[in-house]
């Protein structure tokens, strides 16, 4: 993919570049893109345009009087199709960036931004049973340089570590080892039995069992 520069202040460019990168990344991981939503939108839209073109041609060749009835029918049909198209784009497609399947896991990702706010919001729907958050967000500068160049690595890491299905497909960027290490570090057995000098006399339990902030020790006074 060509590395092109965008204005880092243009929210539309930021979002569009990120959306494109998201699609490319998902496809590169082997997700089979499901284009049904887009295809229906395109089909309805183009059928409407064909009807309009046919009406134009008929009117051009045969004049108004001869084509009056067909035009009335065509206008009505067009309004119905256009209404459906608008409904589809606004309610069904709603910010959809990628929809695909891999190894039986179906994932659907929609993106959003708020005006004047440089944050990328994603809504993820999967059929995999998981405790993953349905909505995730990150500021654009996470994967854009100050000049406006897109950097793939931090973007992929954010996605792979935040979304289970993506992490499953991309182990390297998911950094599951680091995540598990942070959660419950494996400490060498010798240290665990001897409490260190903690200064103010209190005894604190440390050891392999403890979770959370066990990496820290209390301050020495």
């Amino acid at each position, binding site marked *: *993919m*060509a590395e092109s520069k965008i204005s880092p202040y243009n929210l539309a460019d930021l979002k569009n570049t990120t959306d494109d990168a998201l699609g490319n990344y998902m496809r590169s991981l082997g997700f089979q893109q499901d*284009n049904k939503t887009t295809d229906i939108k395109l089909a309805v839209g*183009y059928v409407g345009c064909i009807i309009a073109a046919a009406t134009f041609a008929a009117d051009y060749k045969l004049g*108004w009087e001869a084509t009056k009835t067909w035009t009335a029918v*065509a*206008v009505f049909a067009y309004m119905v199709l*256009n209404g459906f198209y608008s409904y589809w784009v606004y309610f069904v497609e709603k910010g959809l960036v990628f929809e695909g399947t891999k190894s039986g896991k179906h994932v659907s990702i929609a993106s959003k931004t708020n005006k004047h706010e440089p944050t990328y919001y994603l809504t993820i729907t999967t059929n995999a049973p998981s405790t993953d958050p349905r909505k995730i967000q990150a500021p654009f500068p996470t994967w854009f340089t100050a000049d406006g160049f897109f950097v793939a690595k931090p973007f992929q890491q954010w996605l792979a570590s935040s979304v289970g299905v993506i992490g499953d497909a991309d182990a390297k960027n998911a950094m599951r080892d680091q995540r598990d290490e942070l959660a419950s570090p494996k400490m060498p057995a010798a240290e665990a039995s001897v409490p260190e000098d903690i200064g103010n006399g209190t005894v604190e339990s440390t050891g392999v069992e403890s979770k959370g902030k066990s990496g820290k020790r209390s301050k020495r006074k």
Partner: protein
Amino acid sequence: MFGSLANMQPRQLAAQVLQFALVLSTAFMLWKGLSVVTDSGSPIVVVLSGSMEPAFQRGDLLFLWNRRQETQVGEVVVYNVRDKDIPIVHRVIRRFGGGSKPLQLLTKGDNNAADDTELYARGQSFLDRKKDVVGSVAGYVPYVGYVTILLSEYPWLKTAMLVFMALTVVLQRE
């Protein structure tokens, strides 16, 4: 500028082109819809000459209604000269027939010295309400029609406008 097009997936490109096609289609269908509602082949016309001054000036935009077949003397109508595609906006000064017989009209521009007999096709003395009249004027907006006059007198403007619109819509992704 075109770099963004090159990087697009085929479906995205199709969607962008569809956006532009829909702009054109919707504009055209709205126009045709207006035609259907008013029952007129050309529901909005621009005054091209000063023959109806001081009532209408060159550049005025006229809105037509064609569902009232019983046109009265004094109404302003738009008609096409038979076999010519020039719409003329003049006032009805005489009517013949009507009811069961086909309605025939004689028209004259307010600012003209003579009635329209000279303007009609050879051998034609009156207008046929059903066949020749496009509609009667129901309302108007002054000056707005000058854009159309410019577009018809400088046809390259039309192409330029269309190209500009196309680029704007296809390349815009907001």
